[in-house]
């Protein structure tokens, strides 16, 4: 479904040349939930923006259903880390969710239905008329997720979406994402720097090296599909997997220091 082949991104400006992503190849199957995890500053955001068509890669290509991504494709939605700056403060929650739909050829009734349905899915049906800044951080990120859902994407790209919310909210949002994924069968590519989050959420974890980034390891998460914060996190298999990923990331950091 999603093919990333030999992706490379080099930033060039005022005499400096920074190689953010060196050579990345991986695939995501339809309906899969894949987590990308790597040490801080390893170019995860760059990678995701290349996948989403927001950045043009310096080399390699991204294919969605065999078609090359050269700009934001209609079948993809992006959830940013900075929820506060991603929602438009001059629009109410409902209008924020509806805005992207206005670019699609949909009837007004259908649009309203999608908005209501998406807000219900994230548990914010009552907040349609509120402004984003009247909501808490966690609720704002729910709105951003609802906006992405209403867009009916086939692939959902999430860039460290819960990095800026408190631990309790974070756990709730993680369960929300898992729930939505199971319910709606969307393909999700989820970027995080939190190892626990990656293992808890993902069906597969891709461990990235330090910048310039390559894929270090791909790991199948063989935990049951039914997961919950209480039991999954004390599962011995969970502990094994997270220890493994942790070691990989430590090694990746050392590798970066050595080179």
């Amino acid at each position, binding site marked *: 479904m999603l093919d990333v082949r030999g992706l490379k991104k080099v930033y060039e400006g005022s005499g400096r040349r920074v190689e953010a992503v060196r050579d990345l190849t991986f695939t995501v199957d339809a309906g899969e939930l894949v987590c990308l995890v790597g040490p801080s500053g390893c170019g995860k955001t760059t990678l995701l923006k290349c996948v989403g068509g*927001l950045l043009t890669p310096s080399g390699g290509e991204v294919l969605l259903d065999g078609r090359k991504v050269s700009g934001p494709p209609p079948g993809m939605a992006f959830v*940013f880390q900075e929820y506060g700056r991603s929602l438009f*403060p*001059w629009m109410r929650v409902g209008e924020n969710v509806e805005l992207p739909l206005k*670019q699609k050829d949909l009837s007004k009734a259908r649009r309203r239905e999608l908005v209501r349905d998406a807000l219900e899915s994230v548990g914010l049906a009552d907040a349609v008329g509120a402004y984003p800044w009247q909501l808490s951080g966690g609720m704002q990120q729910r709105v951003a997720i609802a906006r992405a859902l209403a*867009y009916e994407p086939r692939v959902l790209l999430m860039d460290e979406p819960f990095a800026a919310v408190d631990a309790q909210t974070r756990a709730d949002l993680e369960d929300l994402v898992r729930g939505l994924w199971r319910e709606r069968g969307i393909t999700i590519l989820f970027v995080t720097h939190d190892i626990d989050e990656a293992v808890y959420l993902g069906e597969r974890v891709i461990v990235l090296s330090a910048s310039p980034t390559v894929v270090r390891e791909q790991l199948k998460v063989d935990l049951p599909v039914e997961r919950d914060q209480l039991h999954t996190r004390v599962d011995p298999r969970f502990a094994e997997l997270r220890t493994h990923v942790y070691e990989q990331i430590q090694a990746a950091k050392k590798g970066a220091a050595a080179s």
Partner: protein
Amino acid sequence: MRRALLRLVFTVALPALLVTVWWVASAGSTDVYWPPLRTILEAFPDVWTAERLRGDVLPSVLRLAGGYALAAVVGVALGTVIGSYRRVRAVCEPVLEFLRAVPPPVLVPVIMLFAGIGDTMKVTVIAVGCVWPVLLNTVEGVRAVDPVMAETARSYGITGVARLRNLVLRSASPQIFAGLRQALSIGIILMVISEMFAASNGLGFTIVQFQRGFAIPDMWTGILVLGLLGFLLSVVFQWVERRVLGWYHGLRASARRSP
């Protein structure tokens, strides 16, 4: 209830006190330039008859409205273009900085050369004087669109006119309004001045006529009318601003509460 009463007292007390002081201090005044307030107020209804309001105040207000509207449209349109392109901005900046710095009233003699002394001249003077604060503030506002919001719009395929209407102009609207507010005070100044220079009707013309004819109490009523006009326009402006920028004030208040 008590609080509301207290607010009312606070609002009314000082103005009432000032008017009383004026009234008492000027009561027996024989100074021609400072007639008793009583005389001024008695002259008021005789001077500002319905006919005079129609013949002098209305034309002034219409000229102001015309020039101001023209400046707003041109300023926002040009400002959006200049603010959107970095190169265009770099080319225009020094020239704009210079044009803005020219004190607007010196435009009156220049524009009189081209447009004579009719209404065209006055509307043009007001428009040319008001356009700079609107233009430069729009440039600043358009330039400062949040990069995360811009990427959000791009990822959801919001481009062209939709992007302009839903993102760029809305996000620049606080700055645009700051410019419009500066422009309003400049506009009133230019309205009065252009009529003082050359006119056969209008507020500025009438007041100068009174002063030249040594009709001092009448002149004072004219000053009061101008003051009232300035106050009224400012009230209207604030009302519009609060409606359009309600979100902005709410956002700022919520940011102050939780920094």
